[in-house]
């Protein structure tokens, strides 16, 4: 049973760490974009598009964490083995 508790723990901590780094990265990207728009408001349209694409790329890192967390929680490949070992 402890195994599954640790699985939940791993998913939570992994997701937290993943979104921590992603948050810092997106913050830096947005701050630079705001700076760029403040200096040159005329280029705001282009900066917006590039920023959104960049944010989506950075966000995909957090999404990978989410996918791994969901694999750990819902589609854990070792569940059957652990259940078999427990039933012995």
């Amino acid at each position, binding site marked *: 049973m402890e195994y599954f508790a640790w699985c939940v723990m791993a998913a939570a901590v992994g997701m937290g760490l993943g979104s921590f780094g992603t948050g810092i990265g997106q913050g830096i990207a947005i701050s630079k974009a705001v700076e760029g728009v403040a200096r040159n408001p005329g280029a705001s349209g282009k900066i917006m598009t590039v920023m*959104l*694409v960049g*944010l*989506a*790329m950075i966000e*995909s890192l957090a999404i990978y964490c989410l*996918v791994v967390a969901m694999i750990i929680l819902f589609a854990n490949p070792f569940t059957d083995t652990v259940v078999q070992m427990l039933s012995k």
Partner: protein
Amino acid sequence: MIHPFIFFEWLEHQLHLHIGNHITYTWLVMALLILVALLVKRNIKTVPTGLQNFLEPIIDGIENMIEETMGPKGKAYFPLIATIAFFILVSNLIALIPGFFPPTANLNTNAAMALTVFAMTHIVGVKEHGIGYFKHFCGPIGWLAPLMVPIEIVGHLARPLSLTLRLFGNMYGHEIVLMIFFTLVPFLVPLPLMVMGVLVAFIQTFVFMLLAMIYIAGSLEEAH
């Protein structure tokens, strides 16, 4: 959101079929797109009206973007990229209608599209450069090739994986978040998240399209 009641699931249950939600809804999206395309195609005019008026700026925008990112050679790949873009956009957006399941929130649909793009990049590369295409994998200097080839192969294999997982994670993650909020506070609170869902749908379509264009453009250009 993964609604508790999905129309086609119910229909499948009534007909004793086992197809899967993502496939039935893929058919729905395909039917929708083909129907709209046929309706527009039936009476094309020089001065657009109605549906044609609505679709022309979108097609124009995609065409301009392809020319900007891929150069004049990229126009040949307009059908592939525009089809993928329309399909992803419509599939993402039907998630917001109650009783509908977005096909893009399933790994198989996304993997199919990502593998199409992946195969297309290499077919285009071989068609464009012949055997010389493999210079792309060897890096800038000849004696670095043994080092560069494994890196490039891993990099190329990571492309379909990241394309698949990005779209899947965004759509599925969004659905899970909405579902959790819906069970906690069903009144008005999930609304801002649904607005964000519209934004996510558009941005993910844009990103998938842009990456497909960049990958194909990468194999179009000469080896450095």
